């Protein structure tokens, strides 16, 4: 189950500067665990206590996973996952 994961600038320190990396898994959660094996530290930037961090947006094929099943959202071969930090503040 190969998927493309697009990495935002601020997290590219974990991917040797790569804008996109390949991952595998049947859910977002599994893909993140898979990425962590090659891109150490990435998981902690995305996930907190088993859920997506509040100010990290993850999209599967242009859908915000928060409106799907969060980190349990299923993914399939050829899907594109986009990670974008929220643009937010006070």
């Amino acid at each position, binding site marked *: 189950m190969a998927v493309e994961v697009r990495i*935002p*600038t*601020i997290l590219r320190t974990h991917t040797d500067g790569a804008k996109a990396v390949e991952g595998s898994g049947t859910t977002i959660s599994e893909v993140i665990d898979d990425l962590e094996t090659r891109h150490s530290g990435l998981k902690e930037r995305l996930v907190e206590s088993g859920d997506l961090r509040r*100010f990290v*947006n993850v*999209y599967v094929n*242009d859908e*915000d996973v*928060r409106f799907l099943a969060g980190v349990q959202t299923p993914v399939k071969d050829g899907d594109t996952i*986009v990670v*974008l*930090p*929220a*643009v*937010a*503040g*006070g």
Partner: protein
Amino acid sequence: MGATRSVGRTGRSPPRDYAERVLKISEEIRDAIVAHARRDHPDEACGVVAGAQGSDETTRLIPMLNAARSPTFYEFDSMDLLRLYRELDERDEVPVVIYHSHTATEAYPSRTDIGLASEPAAHYVLVSTAASGAAEGPVEFRSYRIVDGVVTEEEVEVCP
């Protein structure tokens, strides 16, 4: 617009040279950001100014909707955010400026602003409408780098 302007073309400082950075912005875009902040007062207004990747040029104003519709918080809607970044990517642009307003406090990054800043190369512009609200009057317009929790104010050079 950007192709014919000479604005912001003189100082191609290296992206890592935070201490030396100056925000160069046209009067037109600066005024449009201020107008946006006044229009949305007392809620916070937000948006970006896009420019060609690597250029540090402030070419194209893209006002965004504050999905939080709040006087103390701003957040781009998540789908708007996805569309924005896709459009920028397709045009080889980056968010050179990320702006938002403070409507009751000074134009200085709040703790939340600092904690959530995720574009280390961007100029974070803060506009304060605290002094005159939605009306004409004095506004603060200031710019900062926010990198790893460290705020560095930078000069704003407004070009005609």
